[in-house]
């Protein structure tokens, strides 16, 4: 492990986000496993954002060799979440999806806020290197999470449609940015 091992959090975070899109598609395509897929989507999205936000946090702190500590902390938090979900009455049963989703979505918004803030600072520090489209991608993802939060409250069509639209737009913006960077290097 190098002193930049925390950068591993970045691909891990995006892998979780990719999984969350897969679970979203499964929940829409297969109603029989919709419930499990929606819960998995909830967990993987939060884990994805947590890993990405953690990477920015450790980057800003200039932390050395602390990725394993970060991974351990996330594992502990995951276990605590499962214990809380199971212990809080009614015992042994999952809480209602909407109620749980609201907590997860608020956490996601906090994590995305931190990522956007970190990107804003990086953009100010090196405006020619950091791309605005990246920040735009995360802002769209934040709008998506906010719309989804509204949907858990009103169950309306537009909040649900906008949540998925923003989520996809954010993904497209980030993919375009990553692809442009790689293609740009290949052309040199």
């Amino acid at each position, binding site marked *: 492990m190098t*002193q930049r091992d925390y*950068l591993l959090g970045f691909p891990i975070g995006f892998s979780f986000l990719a999984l969350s899109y897969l679970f979203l598609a499964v929940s829409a395509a297969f109603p029989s496993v919709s419930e499990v897929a929606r819960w998995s989507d909830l967990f993987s999205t939060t884990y994805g954002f947590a890993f990405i936000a953690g990477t920015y946090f450790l980057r800003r702190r200039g932390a050395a060799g602390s990725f394993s500590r970060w991974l351990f902390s996330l594992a502990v938090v995951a276990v605590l979440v499962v214990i809380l979900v199971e212990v809080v009455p009614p015992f042994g049963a999952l809480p209602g999806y909407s109620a749980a989703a609201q907590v997860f979505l608020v956490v996601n918004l906090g994590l995305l806020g931190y990522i956007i803030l970190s990107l804003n600072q990086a953009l100010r520090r090196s405006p020619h*290197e*950091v791309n605005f489209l990246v920040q735009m991608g995360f802002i769209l993802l934040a709008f998506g999470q906010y719309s989804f939060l509204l949907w858990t409250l009103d169950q309306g069509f537009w909040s649900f449609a906008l949540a998925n639209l923003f989520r996809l737009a954010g993904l497209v913006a980030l993919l375009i*940015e990553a692809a442009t*960077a790689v293609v740009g*290097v*290949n052309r040199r």
Partner: protein
Amino acid sequence: MPRPPEEQKRPRPRYRPKIFYDILCSIIKQEESAGIARITRVQNEVNLPSDRFRAHLEDMEALGLIGHGEGLTATEKGRDFVSEYEKVAQVLRRFGLD
């Protein structure tokens, strides 16, 4: 009291892949310009103390990134490493992480 600019922007220490990348870039540049990459010139360019530089060269040779004959040569694997490193570094820069 504000700190002087050089203290505020102290460069971060390079990590191993970055050092490998710098060494390979220097070798490739010298191969293209002078036909041969001399060890002392590469060492001066990458700005490393002799013992650490030699240790890195041994590691790189063991990994098949460079060849060591009359001068230093970048192998095909070494050139691939440079290309892949640039892609990753470019993505990280754009995401504000490098």
